């Protein structure tokens, strides 16, 4: 087991991601954050919180998306469905999809399908804490990356969050 980010590095990385998002979305007027269930929502929660601190006057639109019913592997494996909560229209919005680890790209493929069922956003970007580059099976690239790592298939990347796991750390198994 190898630590990729410790608690301190993790919080700095999230801060940087927020600043990069603000560079591209100066007033967050037309911006929507969507965290992916089940494990992307902890990152999206943090980002939403920090962006709110930076721009307290803006009412940031923030939702959660579950992609279980959009997966392409139902005959291989059943996943537990989680809650989807998007209580606003995403029509003509700039959507930022947020997930913890980007690996094969299949989750994001499903997320794009799911997202488009809620309307036609004007732009969709992808923000990920860990990018397992060179492991992609689909042509999908992130716009905001916390840290890019090289890993092989037999390895696993796990992000631990305090509210879920009691500690804050990214490890490579």
């Amino acid at each position, binding site marked *: 087991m190898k630590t990729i980010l410790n608690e301190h590095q993790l919080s700095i990385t999230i801060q940087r991601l927020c600043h990069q998002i603000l560079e591209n979305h100066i007033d967050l007027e037309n911006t929507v954050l969507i965290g992916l269930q089940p494990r992307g929502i902890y990152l999206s929660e943090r980002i939403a919180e920090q962006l709110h601190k930076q721009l307290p006057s803006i009412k940031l639109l923030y939702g959660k998306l579950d992609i279980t*019913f*959009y997966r392409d592997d139902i*005959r*291989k*494996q059943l996943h537990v469905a989680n*809650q*989807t909560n998007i209580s606003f229209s995403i029509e003509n919005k700039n959507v930022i999809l947020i997930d913890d680890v980007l690996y094969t790209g299949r989750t994001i493929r499903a997320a794009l399908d799911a997202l488009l069922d*809620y*309307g036609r956003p004007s732009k969709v970007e992808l923000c990920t804490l860990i990018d397992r580059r060179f492991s992609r099976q689909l042509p999908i690239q992130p716009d905001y990356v916390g840290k890019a790592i090289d890993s092989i298939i037999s390895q696993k990347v796990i992000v631990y969050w305090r509210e879920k796991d009691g500690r804050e750390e990214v490890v490579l198994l």
Partner: protein
Amino acid sequence: MQLSTKHLLGIRQLLPQDIQAILDTAIQFKEVLQRPIKKVPSLRDITIVNLFYENSTRTRISFELAEKRLSADTINFSSGGSSVSKGESLLDTVNNILSMKVDMVVIRHSASGAPHFLAKHVSASIINAGDGINEHPTQALLDAFSIRDKLGSLEGKKIAIIGDIMHSRVALSNIYLLKKMGAEVMVAGPPTLIPKYIREAFDVQVEYNLRKALLWCDVANVLRIQLERQNQVLFSSLREYNLAYGVKRSVLDSLNKEIIVMHPGPINRGVEIDSDVADSSQSIILQQVENGVAIRMAVLYLLAGSGEGSE
């Protein structure tokens, strides 16, 4: 997450965790049905045949909608106008359909046990949409879902099932399910419509007085009088049945508490339930129908995922 079974033949064969998984998954599908696009691609490569050997409005439409909203391909079959009238047997009919590469079969049949028979002889997943006087599992699941929606949980809740218990597959499936999920169950109705040993067989309470049953319960599930299945006179007239066992506004108002009224449909207005009860805010009859689609989506989704090739 996987169900313990490949078929949904009845609630009797399900484990409590299967029921829990179906009810929990249905919550997410209910959300899908509120979206602008009420459709997900989960069962894109699955073909389902709906075999209806007996009349149905709600169940049939509900299953069909559930299948379409999961993006499955569907074929509808009803025994009228088919080769059944030329004497083809059930097994032959199904084997012929399955040879055209169908993955799941939803069947309603007037013979109790027809789905169980099929499950023994064919490889596809079988879903029971009502077999004779045996079970109607998806109805019980949607009833449980509706109760949970209203009351938060099933555990310890008091449910009275009222009316034609003898001929009702809804009653049997409900009893199995509610007992498995820790609810208290009472059956109420005229003695001729309640099986003699039901108390011993299912550990349910039996009550012959409607008012006492309503006073006891949190939820009253009122069943239809199944005249088509009764081949002898079990009560003297529909009017007399209504006077003694029809759920009326006046009785409900005299209880000093607000109970929830359910009915699986189709309703015989003025027989087992009066219009001013069926259409009141106490009744969740239309919510039941709405929840039916989500429940059936959950069942189809979970069974499609528990087929061969799964881990």
